[in-house]
């Protein structure tokens, strides 16, 4: 049977949104190739009722495996065991980080083909074809699978969350063995929040700052501009500056941060890497200030300003204040 096994990441009593998208997409695709979508969760005492809710997104069955959370290799073991049990033609992952690691490890274990950063999947003649943007999103490649099992890793927010019913799915316990390699890694602390707990998801106007701000103090320019806009505005950041400790993790947009869609997103000193873009591309208006005319961010900006942010931001702040005062 052409079933699809979908990985569902859960944390702190909730299923990850990208996993809900993947389950919804899996259910849609499975129907098109004449199979069922099953979801799999792994953790320490995964709540059965949480697992069962995936039925609402189209999962016909949910497998629950017992093992250490937040690490990829235990899931490679569990998913390989489920797939070797038979019936699965594809494994599907939503965007994120763990899914990339699990999907790739599973490809190696099963000698299976893998495509990552997939933005669209089509069913054709009972098979799935994955579409993956390449070369800085300047082209889209189409990938077919020659292996018994095909592995599809989605890009963040690529798959739409769709609740298709109200019924819970039956939950089954999956027994499997941890591989030696999976026993060599231990989670010490998970999900540490670095920096202040700021809210960027509720803001209408986001001034986002990147490495181009030069140093942590550079964020003062972004904060001054956000303050000038006033009202419901906030400051956001890229992973590069969060990793560097310049700004709080809670303010990060992107693949391992938040997804936002404000009325105005204004970037200062941000190159526009794909992992950042996936978290903000549905913003209503995108403005970018960057001194490099070839920066990828200009490919998806509504207004691009080529210039030095150190010259532009202070004057822009004054001009916005003046406009508001008038």
């Amino acid at each position, binding site marked *: 049977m052409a079933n699809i096994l979908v990985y569902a990441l859960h944390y702190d009593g909730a299923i990850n949104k990208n996993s809900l998208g993947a389950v919804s997409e899996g259910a849609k695709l499975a129907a098109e190739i004449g199979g069922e979508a099953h979801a799999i969760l792994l953790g320490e005492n995964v709540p059965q009722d949480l697992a069962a809710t995936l039925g609402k997104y189209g999962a016909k069955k949910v497998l629950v495996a017992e093992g250490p959370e937040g690490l990829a290799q235990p899931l490679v073991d569990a998913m390989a065991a489920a797939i070797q049990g038979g019936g699965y033609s594809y494994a599907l992952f939503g965007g994120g*980080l763990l899914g990339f690691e699990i999907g790739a*490890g599973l490809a190696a274990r099963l000698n299976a083909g893998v495509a990552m950063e997939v933005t669209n999947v089509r069913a054709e003649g009972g098979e799935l074809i994955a579409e993956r943007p390449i070369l800085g999103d300047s082209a889209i490649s189409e990938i077919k*699978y020659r292996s018994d099992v095909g592995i599809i890793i989605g890009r963040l927010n690529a798959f739409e969350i769709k609740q298709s019913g109200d019924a819970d799915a039956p939950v089954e316990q999956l027994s499997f063995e941890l591989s030696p390699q999976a026993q*060599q890694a231990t989670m010490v602390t998970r999900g540490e929040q670095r920096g202040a707990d700021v809210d960027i998801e509720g803001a209408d106007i986001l001034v986002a700052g990147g490495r181009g701000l030069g140093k942590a103090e550079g964020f003062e320019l972004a904060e001054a501009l956000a303050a000038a806009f006033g009202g419901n505005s906030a400051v956001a950041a890229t992973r590069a500056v969060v*990793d560097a400790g310049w700004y709080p993790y809670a303010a990060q947009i992107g693949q391992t941060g938040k997804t936002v869609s404000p009325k105005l997103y204004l970037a200062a000193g941000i190159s526009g890497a794909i992992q950042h873009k996936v978290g903000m591309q549905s913003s209503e208006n995108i403005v970018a200030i960057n001194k490099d005319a070839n920066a990828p961010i200009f490919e*998806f900006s509504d207004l691009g300003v080529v210039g030095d942010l150190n010259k532009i931001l202070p004057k822009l702040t004054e*001009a916005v204040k003046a406009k508001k005062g008038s």
Partner: protein
Amino acid sequence: MKICVLVKEVPDAAVEKKLNPSTGRMDRSGEKNLNPYDTHAIEAAMQIKEGGAVPVEEIVAVTMGPDSAVRALHKAVSLGADRSVHLSDEAVAGSDVAATGYALAKTLQRESPDLVLLGQQSDDGECYTIGAVVAEHLGMPSLTQVIKMDVESEALRCERQAEYGYDTVQIKLPAVISVGDAINEPRYPSLKAIMGAKKKPLDSVTTGDVEIDASKVGGDNSAAQWVAAKAPPSKAAGEIIEDEDTDETVEKIVAWLDERKLI
């Protein structure tokens, strides 16, 4: 401890990446360079060696690629690797991620490393995943996107950002770690190191030398088959302002925002 660093030759950052319309594959002509993300992996190896927490006997740069990839190895050696290994064989050309990871794992197996380091992504392939494939074939634990790595006895304490914040993971050696670009600031090679790089041992191996099953590698044997490439949906180009007179620029920005009632 013996550290192997996986490095790749990629088109130089200044070269526009495009498809070759006749093959539908990437056009690999033009200037090439060592994948910039891999310099962080070499630097991480050097810092372990210089940190002195564990003695490092050797740092070996390993690549799979065409003849020209030798230059990436020279660069890796100029940045600190003691020697290098080049898997060079027509049979591996066109391999997908899974086949590339398999071939690299077989090449690494002969070296028996205690630690394999990789970059966070290749600038051309952008798969983020070779590390996970290599680790599975070697039967080693692994973690990607690591931005802090402390060597403890027989283990590494690694930090990285994942979906819900920063994770700290303890990984026993031998292990495969791909490092994020925030882990360090790579050094520049000295002129002496650049000049000396070509004199360091470079071992060129074929699939047979490292017992790669040739039926599992190469474009025709790869399980993920690239069938076609197409242009993305076209999007109206945005407006561009070149900042010459900043007062004027700011006026234009404000007018643009005002038109859309954003102020």
